[in-house]
C-alpha cells in the first residue's frame, strides 16, 4: 500500500494543545473514585497473608455482626454464582499447539492461596472505613505451605508446586526459531556468551484500580464503571465470568489515572459486579496501594542466557538463547501477560540486518507472586535488552567502539519492508539518519563526561539502537472497528462526532485523533467531539501502542469515505464535479470560486430535513443507501493480511544516548541527561509524542536504577508501598531531549505509527552501556537490573 498524501496539514504535525487539560487542572475530571451513586456500597478484599497455603476454614460470623456490613463473599460464593475466570491467552490450541497450561481460578480463592494478597473474602459494607474494620474480624484458618519465590528454585526438581497436577512449575515452554542457526554458528568468527537479568517491577500508576458496578435486576443488565483501559475487552471478560449475555453489559471508562497496561485486567472487578447483583445496590471497589503492589499485574523479571555468533567485523549473524520469565501465579485468566516471553523472543532480532539464524527457547515459570499482565513494553523491552546488551558484548569482545558495532549491524532504509528471520515484518526506518543525530549527542555527552570526571566523579555515555513494534493484531478482539471502533458522524445542528476505541488514559489520544480527522475531513478541530471509553459504543482500548496504527488508520479510512460522500453530495447540489470542490474549516467551497460555499452542517441539514436526501444526493449514493453522513469502518493491517506472522504492523525506531554520572565511593548513579532520536512515522502531535517519551524514559530509568519488587523466600512482598518501592521522583529524572525524524509506514493510512513504549524499551540498554563506560577502568559488566548503589559498591570492591 502506498502512503496516500494528506489533505492539508493544518493540524497534523503540529503540537496542538490538548483540549481536555482544563478538566484535569480544575478538578472537573471524573476518575472512578469520584463516582458516587446514592445507596452505593463498598467492597474491600481480605488478602491472604501467606504466599502459599491451604484454606482450611473461613469464619465470617463476627464480621457480619458489625453494623454497616451487608454481605461477605468467599470462594464458595464465587463457585456458586460465577464461571471460572476466562482464559485470555491460549497457545495450546492450533495452529500453535505449544506446551501451554492454564488453570481454573475464581476471583476469590477457593481452596488454596498462591500469592500474598490473593483475595480470600470480600466484605461489602456501607462505607470504606467499616469495610476495613470488618476485614479484621474475619477469621481464616490457613495451613501454610512452602512457597517458592525464586524462579530458578521454582524450576528445580522437588520445588514446591503451585499446581500439583502439573508436576512442575512450567506454565509454558516453546521455541521460536528461524533461518539456520547451525550454519550461522559454523560461519562465526567468535561466539560470545552473556547473561542478563531484570528485576520484577511494574507500572503502579498513581491511581489504583477500581470500579463501580450497578446491576439492574429487572433487566438483567449490568452498568459497570471502571478505570480500565479497554471497556470492550472488560465486557467480554465480565460476561463470561458473570454468566451474562455480553450484549447486556455496558462498561464505561471513567477518566483513567494512568494505565501503562496495568489496567487491562478485570478479575478484581467481577466480585463487585456480583455483589451488586446480590445486594441490589451499586458497589464500589477502589483498591489501596498495598493491595495494588501485591495483586496488580507484575512484569519484567526475566533472565536471558545467550550465545551470540559474530563475524570479526562485528556483524551479528546468529544466536541461541534461553529466555526464562517468572510469570508469578498462572494468570492467563487474570491478565494476558504470558505473551511477553513470546514478544521478547520474537523481538530479540531488534534492528539487526545480518542474521542468518536465531533460536530462542522461552520458559514461563510460575512462582508465588502476583500474575503477569501488560506493562509498557510487554516483552518488546525484553527483546530490546537482548540486542542492546549484545552490542556492548560484541564491542568489548572485538575491540570495536559500540557506536560502530551498531552502525555496522542496523538495517538500511532500502531494506524495508523487511521480513526478519523470526517472523516480525518491519515497515520502514532510517537508522543512518537516527545515528547521525544521535552521534552528535554522543560526542557532546562525551565532552560533558570529561567535565564530570574532572570534578571527581565517574561518568559514562551509553548508546543503543532499538525497535518498538506497535499496533498488534493479536487474537481476542484487537481487530479495529468492532463496536463502532472507527466511526465519524456529521450532525446537522453542528459538530462532528468521532468514535474511537482508543480510550484516552493520559496519552492525549482525544486531541490527536481530532487533529487527524480535522485535517482529513476538513473540519474545525474545536467542532470535533471524541467519543471513547464506553463499551456500548466503542472501546477495545489502547495497548501495544496501537493508537496511531489502528486507531488513526481506522479514523482516516472513515474520514476519507465521509469526505468523498460530502463532496459528491455538494457536487450534485451545484452541478459540478467533486474535483472542483474542497472542504476547509467545516465549509465546502468551489476551488475556483470560493464565494460559492456551504457549511457541511447545512449540507447535512439538507439531507436529513429539507429538502431531503432524494433531492440532494447523487443517484449512486441513493441507490446504495449511503444516505447519511455517518460512516463506520473496520480496519485491518494490510501487512498482517498478507503475512500472518506479521503480528505487529508498525515499528517505531530510535537511537538513544544516555549520560550517567557515578559516585564511585557511594555507588550512587544518576542519569544526568538523556537523548532519543525517535522515528514514529508521520508525526501527528510532536509535543504529545515527546511527553510520552519523557514518561517512558522516566520509567526506563526507574527499572534501570531504582525499581524492584523484593520478595523473601516465603513469598512475602517486602516493599508494598511507594515509600519502599522506588518510583523516581523529580530529582531522579533529568531533562530528556527528543529529536524527531519521520519514516512514514507504508502500512497505515497516513504513515503514522503507534508509539509510546519507547522509553522502557530503549532506556535501560543505553543506561547500562553508560554505566559500563563509566566503570570501564574496573572492567565491570552489568548483568542485572536495577543497578543499586549497594550492588555497584560490591562490584567495584570486588574488582579492586
Amino acid at each position: 500500500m502506498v502512503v496516500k498524501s494528506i489533505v492539508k496539514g493544518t493540524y497534523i504535525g503540529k503540537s496542538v494543545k490538548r483540549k481536555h487539560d482544563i478538566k484535569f487542572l480544575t478538578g472537573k475530571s471524573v476518575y472512578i473514585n469520584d463516582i458516587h451513586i446514592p445507596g452505593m456500597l463498598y467492597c474491600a478484599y481480605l488478602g491472604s497473608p501467606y504466599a502459599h497455603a491451604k484454606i482450611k476454614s473461613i469464619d465470617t460470623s463476627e464480621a457480619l455482626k458489625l453494623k454497616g456490613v451487608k454481605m461477605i463473599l468467599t470462594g464458595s460464593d464465587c463457585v456458586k454464582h460465577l464461571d471460572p475466570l476466562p482464559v485470555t491467552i491460549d497457545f495450546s490450541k492450533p495452529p500453535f499447539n505449544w506446551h501451554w497450561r492454564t488453570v481454573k481460578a475464581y476471583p476469590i480463592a477457593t481452596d488454596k492461596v498462591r500469592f500474598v494478597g490473593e483475595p480470600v473474602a470480600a466484605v461489602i459494607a456501607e462505607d470504606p472505613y467499616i469495610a476495613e474494620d470488618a476485614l479484621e474480624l474475619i477469621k481464616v484458618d490457613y495451613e501454610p505451605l512452602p512457597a517458592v519465590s525464586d524462579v530458578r528454585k521454582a524450576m528445580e526438581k522437588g520445588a514446591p508446586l503451585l499446581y500439583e497436577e502439573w508436576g512442575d512449575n512450567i506454565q509454558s515452554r516453546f521455541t521460536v526459531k528461524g533461518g539456520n542457526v547451525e550454519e550461522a554458528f559454523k560461519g562465526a568468527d567468535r561466539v560470545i556468551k552473556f547473561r542478563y537479568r531484570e528485576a520484577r517491577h511494574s507500572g503502579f500508576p498513581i491511581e489504583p484500580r477500581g470500579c463501580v458496578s450497578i446491576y439492574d435486576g429487572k433487566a438483567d443488565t449490568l452498568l459497570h464503571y471502571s478505570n480500565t483501559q479497554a471497556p470492550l475487552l472488560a465486557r467480554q471478560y465480565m460476561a463470561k465470568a458473570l454468566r451474562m449475555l455480553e450484549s447486556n453489559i455496558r462498561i464505561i471508562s471513567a477518566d483513567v489515572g494512568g494505565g501503562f497496561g496495568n489496567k487491562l485486567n478485570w478479575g478484581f472487578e467481577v466480585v463487585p459486579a456480583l455483589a451488586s447483583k446480590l445486594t441490589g445496590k451499586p458497589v464500589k471497589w477502589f483498591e489501596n496501594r498495598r493491595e495494588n503492589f501485591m495483586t496488580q499485574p507484575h512484569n519484567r523479571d526475566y533472565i536471558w542466557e545467550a550465545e551470540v555468533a559474530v563475524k570479526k567485523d562485528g556483524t551479528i549473524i546468529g544466536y541461541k538463547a534461553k529466555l526464562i520469565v517468572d510469570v508469578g501465579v498462572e494468570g492467563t485468566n487474570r491478565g494476558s501477560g504470558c505473551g511477553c516471553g513470546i514478544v521478547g523472543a520474537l523481538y530479540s532480532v531488534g534492528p539487526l540486518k545480518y542474521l542468518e539464524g536465531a533460536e530462542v527457547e522461552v520458559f514461563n515459570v510460575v512462582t508465588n507472586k502476583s500474575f503477569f499482565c501488560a506493562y509498557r513494553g510487554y516483552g518488546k523491552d525484553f527483546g530490546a535488552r537482548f540486542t542492546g546488551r549484545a552490542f556492548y558484548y560484541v564491542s568489548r569482545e572485538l575491540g570495536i567502539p559500540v557506536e560502530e558495532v551498531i552502525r555496522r549491524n542496523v538495517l538500511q532504509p532500502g531494506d524495508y519492508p523487511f521480513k526478519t528471520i523470526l517472523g516480525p515484518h518491519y515497515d520502514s526506518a532510517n537508522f543512518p539518519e537516527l545515528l547521525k543525530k544521535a552521534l552528535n549527542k554522543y560526542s557532546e555527552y562525551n565532552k560533558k563526561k570529561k567535565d564530570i570526571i574532572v570534578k571527581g566523579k565517574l561518568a559514562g555515555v551509553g548508546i543503543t539502537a532499538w525497535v518498538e513494534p506497535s499496533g498488534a493484531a493479536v487474537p481476542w478482539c484487537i481487530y479495529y472497528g468492532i463496536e463502532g471502533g472507527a466511526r465519524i458522524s456529521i450532525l446537522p445542528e453542528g459538530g462532528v462526532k468521532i468514535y474511537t476505541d482508543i480510550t484516552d488514559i493520559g496519552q492525549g489520544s482525544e486531541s490527536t485523533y481530532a487533529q487527524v480527522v480535522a485535517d482529513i475531513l476538513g473540519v474545525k478541530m474545536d467542532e470535533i467531539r471524541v467519543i471513547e471509553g464506553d463499551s456500548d459504543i466503542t472501546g477495545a482500548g489502547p495497548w501495544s501502542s496501537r493508537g496511531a496504527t489502528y486507531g488513526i488508520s481506522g479514523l482516516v479510512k472513515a474520514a476519507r469515505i465521509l469526505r468523498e460522500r460530502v463532496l459528491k453530495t455538494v457536487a450534485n447540489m451545484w452541478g459540478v464535479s467533486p474535483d472542483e470542490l474542497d472542504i476547509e474549516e467545516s465549509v465546502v467551497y468551489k476551488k475556483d470560486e470560493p464565494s460559492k460555499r456551504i457549511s457541511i452542517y447545512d449540507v447535512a441539514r439538507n439531507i436529513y430535513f429539507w429538502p431531503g436526501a432524494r433531492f440532494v444526493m447523487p443517484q449512486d449514493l441513493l441507490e446504495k443507501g449511503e444516505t447519511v453522513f455517518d460512516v463506520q469502518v473496520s480496519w485491518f493491517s494490510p501487512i498482517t493480511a498478507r503475512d500472518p506472522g506479521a503480528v505487529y504492523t508498525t515499528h517505531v525506531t530510535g537511537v538513544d544516548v544516555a549520560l550517567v554520572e557515578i559516585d564511585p565511593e557511594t555507588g550512587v548513579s544518576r542519569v544526568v541527561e538523556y537523548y532519543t532520536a525517535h522515528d514514529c512515522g508521520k508525526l501527528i502531535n510532536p509535543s504529545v509524542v515527546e511527553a510520552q517519551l519523557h514518561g517512558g524514559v522516566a520509567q526506563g530509568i526507574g527499572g534501570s536504577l531504582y525499581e524492584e519488587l523484593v520478595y523473601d523466600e516465603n513469598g512475602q512482598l517486602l516493599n508494598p508501598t511507594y515509600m519502599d518501592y522506588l518510583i523516581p521522583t523529580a530529582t531522579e529524572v533529568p531533562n530528556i531531549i527528543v529529536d524527531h525524524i519521520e519514516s512514514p509506514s507504508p502500512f497505515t493510512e497516513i504513515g503514522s505509527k503507534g508509539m509510546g513504549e519507547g522509553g522502557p524499551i530503549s532506556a535501560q540498554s543505553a543506561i547500562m552501556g553508560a554505566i559500563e563506560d563509566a566503570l570501564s577502568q574496573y572492567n565491570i559488566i552489568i548483568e542485572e537490573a536495577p543497578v543499586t548503589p549497594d550492588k555497584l559498591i560490591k562490584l567495584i570492591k570486588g574488582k579492586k
Partner: protein
Amino acid sequence: MKVRLIVNRKEYEVDVEPRALLVDVLRDLGFTSIHIGCEDGKCGACTVIMNGYAVKSCQVFAVQAHGSTILTAEGLVRDGELHPLQKAFSDNFAVQCGYCTPGMLMTAYDFLSKTDNVSEENVRRAIVGNLCRCTGYVNIVKAIIDAAERKKRGEWW
C-alpha cells in the same frame, strides 16, 4: 465531632468521626480534585494548602483541621479564568493522565509563594513529594519555571 472548614473561601461544617481523614471529608464535600493514590503518604496526589502551607490531606485527620482555611485546585480558578499556574501547566504540556496534577499545582503554588529565586534544581526538590508516572516531570518542571516568570510579571493571584 463537628468540624468547620473554610474551603476555597466558603465555609462548611461537617460532623465526622475522629478517624475521618481530611482527604475523604474534602472529597465528600465535592472537592474531587484531591486524589487518593496511596496510604503511606508518599505520592502527594492529595496535597492541599492548609493555613498557608501545602500538606498531604491524607495524612491529616479532619478533626485536626477544624477551623482551618483550605485551598484546592478548584479554588485557583477565579471568575472562570484559569490561574496563571494552571495556564502554565496547560501551555507546557505538563498534563497527561491528570491524576497527580492538582497535587502538583498546590505544592507548586506553595513553593512559588515562598521562593524568590526559582531554579530548575529547587523546583525539582520542591516536588519530590509529588509522584508522577506519566510525564517524567520534564514538562511539569518547565511549567513551574514558566509560572514563576508569570508571577514576576505580576500575573498572579
